């Protein structure tokens, strides 16, 4: 987070005087569970991109088609909606979750990444 300002240096009334400032707010620090992308299983269906409430899915156009590339951890709050809607995480026949290594998105505790 940017350095906090004193009361003399702030606009009055809690007003925000420029647009798009939510982008500067690092909501990634709220994350308890981290979505981890396993590209080898991804079909780039864009469900995660559609459902993500924080526009934290990184997408690139490849040959005119959108390709899921991973997560923007600066803004991702770790809500897990992406993993929840990912069709590759469920076996279509049994409707049960598939083994972790076969999924496109897995949720890992943030504590696994403390060294980062």
């Amino acid at each position, binding site marked *: 987070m940017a350095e*906090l300002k004193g*009361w003399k240096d*702030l*606009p*009055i*009334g*809690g*007003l925000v005087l420029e647009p798009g400032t939510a982008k500067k707010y690092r909501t990634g620090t709220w994350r308890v569970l981290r979505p981890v992308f396993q590209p080898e299983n991804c079909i780039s269906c864009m469900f995660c991109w559609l459902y993500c409430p924080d526009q934290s899915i990184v997408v690139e156009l490849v040959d005119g088609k959108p390709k899921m590339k991973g997560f923007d951890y600066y803004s991702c709050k770790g809500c897990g909606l992406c993993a929840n809607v990912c069709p590759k995480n469920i076996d279509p026949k049994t409707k049960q979750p598939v083994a972790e290594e076969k999924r496109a998105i897995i949720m890992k505790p943030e504590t696994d990444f403390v060294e980062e």
Partner: protein
Amino acid sequence: MPLKQAITGAEAVAYAMKQINPDVVAAYPITPQTPVVEYFAKYVADGVVDTEMIPVESEHSAMSAVVGAAASGARAFTATASAGLALMHEIVFIAASLRLPIVMAVANRALSGPLNIHCDHSDAMAERDSGWIQLWAENAQEAYDFTVMAYKIAEHKDVRLPVMVNFDGFIISHGVEVVETLDDELVKDFIGKQIKMYPLLDTSNPVTYGSIDMYDYYFEHKRQQVEAMKYVPKVFKEVAEEFAKISGRKYDLIDEYMLDDAEYIMIALGSTAGTIKHTINELRKEGKKVGLLKPWIFRPFPKVEYQRLLNGRKAVVVLDRSASFGAEAPLYQSVKSALYEIAVKPQIGSYVYGLGGRDITPTHIQQAFEDAFKGDLIVDEERYLGLRE
């Protein structure tokens, strides 16, 4: 040419608002405020003002609507009383916190219960820490004058705070008095063009109002409100001086009545000051050195003025038209705390009177003065005027 009109306080406030011609008025009827907005609605219907009038479904909505209007850059006005002000409570704080120069007339009325529609100050006193500037009128003339002055104080760049114009319900709001009104043009020139700051409708400079403000910044924004209040006395005096030039009526933070040589001083808000002035005139004939200190402004509380005016006097009697259950009455509390550091402290006594519109007469006022003459004031004792034991 100033015009002398026999009108009620409510009509005087509405007349001032007609001359100000605000962009937006949103209000909900409540006794005894209703005639303010009734008179104003007629101006709207007759096309003498350009105001967008919003008849809302509650006072909570009325205050919300004027908050939205003021944030968009409009001059906004509302009026209420008692339970209506209480219903606004949440948004009253928001108006001050968003630093919106709204003006609200309050025809002071008792809060329920038991249900009562008559005058006391419990409604406004419940909002005294809301961050609004509170002006208190003694009569219809002052209610008119303060309404004319209010936007100039509220919109000042160092202030940017809402202003509540308090005038006693029924006594002032419904009592007919002679009020000297100014010419429309004079009022228009006096209040001038609105000083807009961060209007939402300025789409080339987008601004966000009311975003969430957590433990990292909320405290700093509250500190700014504390600071803004410090500028109010100076701005009030400037506006009052300018107003005196067009009206001949001179206002200050405090109305000093026969204070110069007074040994016994009474302090009271609102219409009761008139009865006190009459009683003082009578007591002066008997050679009693009595005077009145009437706060024209209660928030911010100009502590230094009280210290200057009360130092070395024999006794100070504070009259409150509201109680603070389990603590001292609000005006008394403020005065007493202001005197903590003065060199020569007067005796001081607290008298609560007039709750729920109970009449206060010169006899009651004299009774309180008599206690002071006898040296019979007890600092930690609350007494009651006009109450049956």
